[in-house]
Each structure stands twice: as structure tokens, then as C-alpha cells.
């Protein structure tokens, strides 16, 4: 049985006359890699911002594992298991790779407020940080400042920061943007491998159709704040409306 991880009810958001979410209703299921696609301005980023707590919704309710999170601030949602990565590199630039992961680990084990205890004594935290870095093959760079990493590695580090909070649900906003083909394949492999462990459910917002169709179990097509198609990659590929408004030539050739 597929269990519902995130449930969205009648979610609406408009900026003036521009409607970016129009009474959206959908669920995200645990263990499935779900992709959200749609043309520019379809409301994909806005949707992630609302779900993760950066933007307030105009109306509607959001539930994470049956618990309402609609009005909660970002850090509370993160503590409950909902996290995201960003379209552009978004790390702690002047801190080391190790410290970059250490901050979210401290945040989630609720030790971030320890004012007097020396940090190097927190061996449990250090072990967990190395575990995350090993998962991403960044363990050898642990002591380098984040700015010294290659672009691809910085993007990986960013996914690492998001994974370090042990999210149940993780939104990846164009996870391979700006990567070279080799890094791209590696990143996709990493996502697939992490998803297979079953600890985290991934929701991916992506432009690249190859990635979407090769990686996803389910695809949601967003257009002008509305879900116009929802199903397996095959269903979506063959959907007439989707092809008209978005996929266009790319699939029809």
C-alpha cells in the first residue's frame, strides 16, 4: 500500500492578478520519486516556496504525515522532516565542508543552542557529519572551505546539507542545473541510490526532460497554477494537453 506523505488541499496563491496556484489538490507518496514539471512561470518555484514555508499561502491547507503544517515557520517544518535544496548554489561559503553539514546536524539533534559546550567534544555529531559526507563522496574534502569546491561538488554539498536533517520529504529544485554531463550522471545516480534506501522521498523540479523521464516514478505537470496532468512518465508523455502547452516539439519529433 502506498502511504501519503504530503497532502495538499485547495492550495491557492496569487500575486496580484497572476495566479500561481489555483486550488491545488494533490498528495505525495512515500518512496516514489515524483517530478514536477511545467513551463517557465507555471508556479513550480512558488509551490516549493509555499510548501517549505518561505511564502505564505492565500488559502488551503498542507499536511505532512497527517499533521497540519500550513502556518508553521520554515525551521519547524524542517524539524518535522520537510526540506529543500535550491536552484542556485546555496551553501555556507566561508565555512568548511564539514561545518556546512555540521550546522544542519546540530539543528536537527537540537544541540545548536549549546553555548558553552565545546563543539569538538560532540563526537556523535561528527560521526553523523562524516556519514553524510561519505554518502556523497565528499569525505576527502571535509576540511576545505566550501568555496574551493567545484561547482558540481558545491551542488552535491547542498544536497548534503538538505539530507543532513534526515528529511522524510526532500524537494530538489533543478538539482543538476549548471552541471557538466559527468557530474549530472553521478548526481542522478546518487539520487536514485538514496531514494532506494527508502529513508527520504524525493520530489524533483526539473527542466531537463531526459532526467524527468528517466528518474521519476510519477510526474505532475503544472500550468498556470493548475495541475493539468498527473501520472507515470508514459502517461504524461502521451497526454495531449501536456504536449500542447509544454513538451511541444521535444517529444513529437
Amino acid at each position, binding site marked *: 500500500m502506498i502511504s501519503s506523505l504530503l497532502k495538499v488541499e485547495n492550495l491557492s496563491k496569487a500575486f496580484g492578478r497572476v495566479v500561481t496556484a489555483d486550488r491545488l489538490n494533490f498528495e505525495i507518496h512515500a518512496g516514489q520519486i515524483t517530478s514536477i514539471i511545467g513551463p517557465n512561470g507555471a508556479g513550480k518555484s512558488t509551490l516549493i516556496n509555499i510548501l517549505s514555508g518561505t511564502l505564505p499561502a492565500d488559502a488551503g491547507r498542507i499536511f505532512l504525515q497527517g499533521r497540519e503544517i500550513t502556518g508553521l515557520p520554515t525551521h519547524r517544518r524542517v524539524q518535522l522532516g520537510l526540506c529543500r535544496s535550491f536552484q542556485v548554489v546555496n*551553501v555556507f561559503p566561508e565555512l568548511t565542508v564539514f561545518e556546512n553539514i555540521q550546522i544542519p546536524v546540530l539543528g536537527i539533534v537540537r544541540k545548536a543552542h549549546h553555548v558553552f559546550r565545546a563543539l569538538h567534544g560532540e563526537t556523535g555529531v561528527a560521526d553523523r557529519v562524516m556519514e553524510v559526507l561519505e554518502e556523497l563522496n565528499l569525505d576527502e574534502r571535509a576540511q576545505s572551505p566550501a568555496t574551493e569546491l567545484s561547482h558540481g561538488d558545491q551542488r552535491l554539498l547542498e544536497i548534503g546539507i538538505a539530507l543532513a536533517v534526515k528529511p522524510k520529504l526532500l524537494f530538489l529544485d533543478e538539482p543538476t542545473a549548471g552541471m557538466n554531463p559527468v557530474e549530472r550522471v553521478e548526481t542522478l545516480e546518487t539520487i536514485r541510490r538514496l531514494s532506494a534506501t527508502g529513508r527520504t522521498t524525493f520530489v524533483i523540479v526539473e527542466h531537463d526532460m531526459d532526467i524527468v523521464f528517466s528518474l521519476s516514478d510519477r510526474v505532475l505537470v503544472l500550468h498556470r497554477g493548475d495541475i493539468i496532468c498527473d501520472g507515470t512518465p508514459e502517461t504524461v508523455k502521451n497526454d495531449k494537453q501536456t504536449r500542447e502547452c509544454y513538451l511541444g516539439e521535444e517529444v513529437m519529433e
Partner: protein
Amino acid sequence: MGRYLPYLAFGLLALGLACIGLFADRFVLYLTMRVMLLSIFALGYNILLGRTGLLSFGHAAFYAAGSYGMALFYLHINPDPLMGILAGVVLAVLVALVIGFFCVRHTEIYFAMLTLAFGMMVFSLIWNLRDITGGDDGLVGIGRNPFLGFSIAKDSRFYFVVMFFFMLTVWVIHRIRSSAFGLVLAGIRENHQRASFAGISIKRYRLAAFVISGAFAGLAGSLGAMLERNTDPFSAHWTHSAEPVLVSLIGGLQTFSGPIVGSVVFVVLREIIERFTQNWMLWFGLILLVIIMGFRGGAMGSAERYLVRYGTKFREEGSS
């Protein structure tokens, strides 16, 4: 070896200061006390500016809260110096909590201007509430009763009280910087959006940093009132808020010892320049210009960079 370095530095600092306290003349003693007071002020302030990345122009208000809190407690409630200092710090913390509550919702220029506005309000309150604060005269006649049974009436004795609190501040700030809390503050400085997605409540941590820096400003203020035996309304003035900013810049924002080195440079330079000319500000401004443009990262930041470069060169030569 590296792990024991802080202890060694701490010991040497204490030893040096004790020597000054035992052997130096009154003038050097007074100057060293001023350096230590400014250091306490700036060390706390740098938790906010250097660590959390928030520029406040209102910390004179907390310094003054410490001064007046201590003085009022001494004059009206209890003349015990330790309790007076505590009262000053508590008042500063309360004022910082209230002002911080409104300020930490904003960042950058908005934060700076809000702290400036609140600081000016505190100054005008002190200036106008003549019945309580003595207005432009300040509060006078603050005596120094024995501190834990130890007479501190003489400056040469009071010096060791200042030194005690200075060393305490150095230790506490060092602990904070090497704690989880210190790292999280640096994370908020580097990328506050990412920090909230690391499960961190940014406002709460900013407020905590604000209040901590306010507490040390209050400590410096209450000790300052005891040193001068009066309170000065201009200690709440916004020009006084600029002092920890300058001191942090001179010494180096990202270094631990920066505020201390900056305080030494600030107090000693000012003292020397004032002997030669009335316009010490002009000459001080020029020197500041050179330091900010020539030594990016302040005196200690530059020294650190130089050492790192020299160290790598040395190692390379050694291996070849």
C-alpha cells in the same frame, strides 16, 4: 600542541596584565583599565558583528544601561560592588531583549538604522529624566566598597577587579566561539536562508547574539561607572556606539583577538595623538583609513594571513 595554544595565550595574557597591575605607574594602570573595558565591550560586540554579521549602531545604549543600572543600584538599593555590577548587567540584558526583539526582524541597513534609532531614544531618555539620571551631570558619588572583602577603593586595587572581569570575558567569548551556538551564528552570517533550512530559528539566534553582546556592553558600562566614580550621559550617545565597530575593524572582524588588539591600538593611539594636537580625530581618521585600506581583515586578520603564507612557503622549501 595546537590544542594547548589557547591556554598558553590565556596564561601569558593574565601574567602580563598582573605584572602591569603590580608594577606599572598610575597612568599606565588607568590606560590599561580603559583598554580592558573597551575590550570587554568590543569582544561582546564582535559576537554580533563578526560572528552573526549584524552591524549595530546602538550598543552604547547597553553600555549606558550597565553604567546607570550599577549607579542607581549603588545609590538607592545596595552599595555592594558585585551586586551593583550584576544589576548593571541585568538592566543591560533587559534593555537588549526589548530593543533586540524589534531589531532582529530586519537585517543590514534596516537593522543598523533601527539600532541607531533605539540608541538615540535611550540617550534622550537619560538626558531628559533628570530626576533619575542626573541629566547632563550624570550620577555622581559612586564609591567602591570592598569587593568580596577585598578593598578596591584605590585604582591599583580596582585594577584587579577589572582584570578579573576581562579575563572572564575572554574565556566566555572563547567558549562561545568554539561551541555549536558559535558555529550556527557563523552559518546565519554566511547564509541565513540556508540556516533556516537547516532547522535553525534565525530570529531566536540573532536575538540571543544581540542579548549576549548587550550583556558584555553592560558589564563594561558598570565597570566604567565604578572606574570613573560617575556616569556620563554621553556614554549612551551614538558616537560611543561607533567605538566597538572601529575597534573590531582595526583588530579584525573574523579573529578572536581582534577586538583586544583593536582596543589597545585605539586607546593608546588616541592618548599619544592627543598629546601633540587638539584635532586627534583628524589624525586618527587618517590612521584608520590606512588600516582599513591597507590591512584588510584588520591587524590580526592580516597577521594570520601572513603567517599562513609564510607557513606554506616554509613547508614547501622544507620538502624540496
